[in-house]
């Protein structure tokens, strides 16, 4: 009896134990763990597809951590339980290794994970050696991919233009990486020979791309009359250029819509730069050095000219003006500048809704294009041929760059040849090699060109957070506590030089003042675009009391129609704010119709300003022309595939042995139970003998 009580007590204890620990929990949550990251996606041009896609149901691979190059050999030499998903740190994410993984085939390598462990990384650029080679000047001297000394991106691997048969997933967060590593160590990283016999930690990446082959094919399929569901396979890369003038232009009368009437004798100096950047992964990539430095210099030059120049009427030639244009989509075969050239050629710029007189090529005096300025000690002024205009501007630039009064101590060299950097000016020179385009560009020194690592660290940006008024111009000696070799001071110096040279060109007089560009403005500008859109500069350039920017940098990829377009939106506001004139007499209520716009201003109290900025479309002309020949290479043909989701999760992949065992046990149970039940039911009268006679055939 006592034993029974004991047994009952033990059972009771166990039940209580179970009751305390048993909680309702979804089985799925115990099996899968989501992994947050960014996916590589597919882009197409007129002839090819590039990027990656998973299989339709999602690609599954067994995790394998690659620490040294030799670890890859295990995966490439008939691994025991394929397919695998190597986790590769950036210093091993090289062209050679990736091509070997492609060669191993999707049956061996199904997913590639790039993990954010940049300690050993020396370089990381997957753009071509010659960016935008096929939409630049067709000349071997412009860029030679085989010769790193003269190519524009010597560290480029060109992987951005490869087509991968597996998805590539970038995992930036260290917590997510440690999840993966833990799982790999716990389940996979021992006894490699028995991989086939046990359950292994695996990852599933879903990033199926609906477009395939080329832009031509996917646009045709989207427009196909049988496409009744209306599904889209791809969208053209599309964004907005932002332009503004230093002097406001007259509003054209409504009647003057005839082109002949609208053409004027205005003269514009075009100052341009690139607005966008590119990277392999969706939503990551700031393009700090490859394009943001140029944009910051353009903004500073614009602001400085706005503050320094006398009224337009007092210029020696009062028809002169400066037109600042930031082109979008330049990373993808100069979408923005090609469209600009296309529009200007067809008398369609600015668009009629802007209600300004047309600008034609005859109105453009010359173009100063700000390219990539990786190393400001090595800036060169490029032009196709050594015209007097180029000589004069070079001499003006150097006059200020070397002047002891300002102490910039820079020397700007010149190169008058076909060795032209891959900047927006290429689109203009391609139309007309005689076009007066001058390009400021430094010797390439960016080892992270067009990559996820071209960030604040790459340009050595430390936020000063001075809280000072960035709209005031300081004296040249006032460095606002920024070190001489800081990014802020470099930008200040270059933009001051450019602005002073343009000042001299416009006024015909040498600049003798002591005011220079404000390093605080550069500081705030980089903070907004590299660290957080919730920042003083963006706040000042918005309507008072408008919602704050997100606490993350704006996305600078050109994207597609309906994309976020954050970067062009903020550039529009910032250029609008910095290039506008304060109208203290106009009250807030009357300040509603453009060009009048109400800004919060530095203090946030609000001020009415006369603005000049506007958008123009940055959609490649290839998508406007009927029956465009996609293979002609005249215009950018880049499209982006559509996709439904990016997701990744880790789990245990059962071994084949386990699956086969389960299935066989199930089949055996099924067959045995059929036999047993049949025998019992056919002979039930024997088994249940106590039944009445009529019930003998119980189970008949």
């Amino acid at each position, binding site marked *: 009896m006592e034993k029974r009580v004991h047994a009952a007590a033990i059972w009771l204890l*166990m*039940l209580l*134990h*179970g*009751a305390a*620990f*048993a*909680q*309702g929990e*979804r*089985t*799925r949550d*115990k*099996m*899968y*763990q989501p992994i947050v990251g960014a996916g590589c996606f597919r882009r197409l041009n007129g002839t090819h597809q590039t990027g990656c896609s998973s299989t339709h149901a*999602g690609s*599954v691979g067994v995790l394998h951590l690659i620490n040294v190059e030799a670890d890859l050999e295990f995966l490439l030499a008939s691994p025991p339980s394929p397919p695998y998903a190597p986790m590769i740190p950036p210093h091993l994410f090289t062209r050679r290794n990736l091509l070997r993984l492609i060669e191993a085939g999707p049956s061996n390598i199904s997913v590639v994970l790039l993990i954010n462990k940049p300690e050993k990384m020396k370089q990381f650029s997957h753009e071509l050696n010659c960016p935008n080679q096929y939409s630049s000047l067709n000349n071997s001297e412009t860029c030679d991919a085989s010769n790193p000394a003269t190519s524009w991106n010597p560290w480029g691997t060109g992987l951005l233009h490869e087509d991968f048969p597996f998805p590539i997933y970038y995992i930036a967060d260290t917590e997510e990486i440690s999840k993966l590593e833990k*799982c790999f160590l716990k389940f996979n990283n021992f006894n490699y020979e028995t991989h086939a016999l046990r*359950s292994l*930690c*695996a990852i*599933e990446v879903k990033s199926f791309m609906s477009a395939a082959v080329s832009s031509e094919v996917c646009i045709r399929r989207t427009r196909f009359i049988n496409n009744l569901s209306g599904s889209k396979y791809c969208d053209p890369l599309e964004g907005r250029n932002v332009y503004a003038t230093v002097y406001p232009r007259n509003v054209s009368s409504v009647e003057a819509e005839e082109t002949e009437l609208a053409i004027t004798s205005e003269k514009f100096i075009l100052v341009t730069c690139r607005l966008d950047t590119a990277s392999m992964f969706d939503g990551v990539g700031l393009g700090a050095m490859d394009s943001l430095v140029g944009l910051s210099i353009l903004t500073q030059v614009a602001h400085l000219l706005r503050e320094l120049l006398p009224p337009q009427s007092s210029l020696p030639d009062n028809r002169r003006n400066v037109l600042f244009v930031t082109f979008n989509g330049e990373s993808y075969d100069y979408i923005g500048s090609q469209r600009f050239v296309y529009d200007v050629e067809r008398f369609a710029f600015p668009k009629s809704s802007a209600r300004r007189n047309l600008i034609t090529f005859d109105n453009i005096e010359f173009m100063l294009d700000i390219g990539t300025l990786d190393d400001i000690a090595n800036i060169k002024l490029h032009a196709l041929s050594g015209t007097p205009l180029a000589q004069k501007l070079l001499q003006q630039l150097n006059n200020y760059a070397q002047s002891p009064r300002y102490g910039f101590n820079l020397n700007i060299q010149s190169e008058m040849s076909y060795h032209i950097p891959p900047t927006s000016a290429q689109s203009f020179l391609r139309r007309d090699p005689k076009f007066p385009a001058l390009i400021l560009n430094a010797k390439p020194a960016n080892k992270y060109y067009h990559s996820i690592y071209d960030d604040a660290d790459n340009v050595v940006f430390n936020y000063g957070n001075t809280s000072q008024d960035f709209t005031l111009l300081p004296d040249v000696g006032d460095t606002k506590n920024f070190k001489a070799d800081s990014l802020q001071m470099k930008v200040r110096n270059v933009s001051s030089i450019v602005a002073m040279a343009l000042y001299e060109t416009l006024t015909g007089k040498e600049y003798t003042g002591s005011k220079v560009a404000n390093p605080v403005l550069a500081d705030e500008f980089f903070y907004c675009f590299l660290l957080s859109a919730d920042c003083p500069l963006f706040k000042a350039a918005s309507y008072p009391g408008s919602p704050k920017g997100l606490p993350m940098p704006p996305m600078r990829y050109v994207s597609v129609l309906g994309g976020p377009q954050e970067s062009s939106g903020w550039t529009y506001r910032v250029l609008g704010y910095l290039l506008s004139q304060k109208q203290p007499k106009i009250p807030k209520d009357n300040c509603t119709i453009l060009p009048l716009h109400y800004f919060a201003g530095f203090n946030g109290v609000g001020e009415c300003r006369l603005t000049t900025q506007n958008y123009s479309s940055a959609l490649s002309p290839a998508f406007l022309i009927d029956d465009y020949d996609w293979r002609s290479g005249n215009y950018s043909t880049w499209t982006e595939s559509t996709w439904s989701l990016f997701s990744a999760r*880790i*789990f*245990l*992949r*059962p071994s084949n042995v*386990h*699956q*086969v*065992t*389960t*299935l*066989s*046990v*199930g*089949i055996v*149970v*099924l067959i045995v*139970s*059929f036999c*047993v*039940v*049949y025998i019992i*039911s056919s*002979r039930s009268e*024997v*088994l*249940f*003998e*106590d*039944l*009445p006679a*009529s*019930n003998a*055939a*119980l*189970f*008949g």
Partner: protein
Amino acid sequence: MTLPEFFGCTFIAFGPPFALFVFTIANDPLRIIILIAAAFFWLLSLLLSSLLWFAMIPLRDVLAFGVFFSVVFQECFRYIIYRILRSTEQGLQAVAEDTRVTDNKHILSYVSGLGFGIISGMFALVNVLADMSGPGTMGLQSGTELFFVTSAAQALSIILLHTFWSVIFFNACDTNNYLHIAYVVGSHLFVSLLTLLNASELYTATLLTNYIITILTGLLAFRVAGGTSRSFKKFVTCQ
């Protein structure tokens, strides 16, 4: 769970009930109707238990509470279906083509028990199956690979147990054998609470106990339905 695992588990859990259905139920429309009716009554009991669980907000996380009342409701509905079947016996006799159903009362209890069991096993397993679409198996954060097979075996034992319980229960109600009724309710409660131990992955302990009880209950049901050791001997030796 992968496709082979899915079929393996399904065959384990539903292979034997399917065989029973094919050979003993499918050829008689009346039995099918009773099977479905029993399943419906089990669903009603599930509805009531879930309503109670839903209403008792502070006790939602205490699974033992829900399990206890679920068992109580199931046994109540077993009694209700017993009353209904007994009160409709006359009508059944009139419509039945095959009079064995009404002549042997154990057939009715067996059929309704199987209906109870199948639907209960389905609900036990389908919840697990529904979460299993995808390429993974159990064991990443906790649990073992054997989770699915265990669940399937558990579901099978519950299906068989329900069949046996109904046979015993109906007979006990007919003969006022309160000991048997107490055994049915008690073992049902015990088996259900036992599954809570699965949370601590004591699969061998729970499954083993479970199947011991299943066999014992099966033997009792065999006795109740008129089987003896002598008849079993005759059956085995093919006399």
